[in-house]
């Protein structure tokens, strides 16, 4: 829901309660009306229109591809590329930036399609991830020069595709990913585009979480979990200090939970045979230890999220907790622990947490100024 609609709902309530005067409410409404939502219906329709145009061109080309000579195919591809950027230039001049961004995105799509079609025309094979990197760098160039948020988003998607493909083929950590990632993340920061920073974090996580499979004997998930834990601890220790420079501590904490718990999940349930061995006796203690670390960590994260009003982190920790309990239940059915005993333990933990949350809530409710 857009912020304006949310305020409108509360505004009627506050006005009825007599906290806000009628002139005050009118002034707030007028101010809201002057600020347009970031994504209008027109812009979304323009993006869809660009996609449909793309499909129309593609099906036309596919129907006539065989009949064309190589040269006419090349010229067609280049003409489409230039038409996209020419259209973008025209739209920027007409003060239609959202439509222009759609055209830039179209140009990047045509550029990528051209790399693939030229490879096909000339029977090139080489290494497919290299082609994706070439595409990503073209998108990054457009993102820097224009500057284009749409191109920046496309760059992150392409970089993740590149690193996953490269890892699948080379079975190595692929630290090379960090070079274009740093450049693209720096660009997102320079553009002061918050969704871009989120994309930077998500793409780094997409690279970082599976990293444990590729370094230090291929079972280094503890290192990834440690990185996530340290990141969360850094926010707990210096959140306000971080926020004085840039307001990123809340989001960083949420992403730190994802990193740490994803790695702990892999240790417990994906790479578990390595961590626990196959012997039934020796494995239980280590599983319990890791499960305890996960649960205590997640509960701690929930409390901190409650204390700092961090809704995203709270829900992520809830989700992690639910997954952990469910997985432990599945793993231990009829085997390691008696199911009823397991439920008793989880019930005790959850109840303890509910009590803690209640106390915390109560303490906040009696804070002067909030009480009604």
């Amino acid at each position, binding site marked *: 829901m857009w912020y304006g609609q949310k305020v409108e709902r509360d505004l009627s309530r506050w006005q009825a309660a007599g906290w806000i005067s009628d002139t005050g409410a009118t002034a707030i409404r007028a101010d809201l009306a002057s600020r347009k939502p970031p994504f209008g219906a027109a812009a979304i329709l323009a993006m869809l229109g660009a996609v449909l145009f793309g499909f129309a061109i593609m099906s036309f080309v596919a129907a006539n591809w065989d009949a064309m000579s190589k*040269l006419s195919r090349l010229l067609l591809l280049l003409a489409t590329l*230039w038409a996209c950027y020419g259209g973008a230039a025209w739209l920027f001049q007409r003060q239609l930036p959202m439509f222009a961004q759609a055209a830039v995105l179209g140009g990047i799509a045509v550029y990528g399609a051209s790399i693939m079609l030229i490879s096909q025309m000339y029977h*090139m094979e080489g290494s497919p991830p290299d082609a994706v990197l*070439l595409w990503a760098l073209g998108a990054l160039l457009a993102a820097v*020069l224009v500057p284009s948020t749409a191109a920046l988003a496309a760059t992150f998607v392409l970089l993740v595709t590149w690193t996953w493909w490269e890892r699948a083929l080379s079975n190595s950590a692929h630290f090379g990913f960090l070079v274009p990632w740093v450049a693209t993340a720096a660009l997102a920061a320079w553009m002061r585009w918050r969704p871009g920073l989120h994309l930077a974090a998500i793409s780094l996580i997409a690279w970082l979480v599976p990293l444990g499979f590729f370094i230090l004997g291929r079972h280094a998930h503890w290192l990834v979990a440690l990185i996530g834990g340290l990141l969360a601890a850094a926010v707990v220790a210096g959140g306000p200090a971080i926020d004085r420079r840039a307001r990123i501590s809340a989001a960083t904490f949420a992403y730190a939970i994802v990193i740490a718990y994803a790695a702990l999940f892999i240790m417990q349930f994906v790479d578990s045979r390595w961590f626990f061995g196959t012997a039934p006796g020796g494995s239980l203690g280590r599983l319990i230890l890791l499960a305890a670390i996960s649960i205590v960590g997640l509960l701690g994260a929930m409390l901190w999220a409650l204390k700092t009003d961090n809704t995203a982190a709270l829900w992520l920790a809830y989700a992690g907790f639910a997954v952990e309990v469910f997985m432990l239940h599945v793993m231990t059915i009829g085997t390691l622990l008696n199911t009823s005993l397991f439920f008793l333990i989880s019930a005790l933990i959850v109840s303890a947490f509910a009590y803690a949350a209640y106390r915390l809530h109560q303490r906040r409710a009696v804070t002067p100024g909030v009480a009604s």
Partner: protein
Amino acid sequence: MIPFLKNRIVLTLVIVALAQTGVLAGMVVDRVRLLKTGREITLPIVPVDPRDLFRGEYVRLGYDISRIPVNLLDGPLPKPNAAFYVTLERKGDGAWLPIKLTSKRVEESSPDRIVLKGRAMFGRLQETPSTPTAAHMVKYGIESYFVREGQGPRLEALARDKKLAARIAVDSGGNAAIKGLLVDGVVQYEEPLF
């Protein structure tokens, strides 16, 4: 400067379009140079897994040199997903056979030898081959050939009967490209440069 380009946004978009056009043109020019100036060798095509030979609109081409016996490895094992080099030698009957596989490029001046750049077909070469007769599966970028719709089954049948060969252009860097396909030694599919 052209007045049109004085506008910043127009100028930047022209730069983006020029750069991307440059990359695409570079791909084509590099390929055309390889096809025009590369040394020519002819390699017989061997059938690959018959069920997988014809997929969509391209044929998968297998070669004798796609399998390099493990004992031909000379020096350290190439890094995963990195390119390496295979040296071929022309035998008395005109057939090209692999003689060694190296991580680094080797200079061969003899007209009866040629160096091809290859990559492991499945990302990496086997570190510990199971038997001495095991082979490294190698691709050279000449394994797929896009054909018009309906041409696939014909080529598939010819490959199975071992009547198909590929004319390959190889440049000094070891890059290889298909110039055309030969049926019973006669060129039937020739690649136009443009």
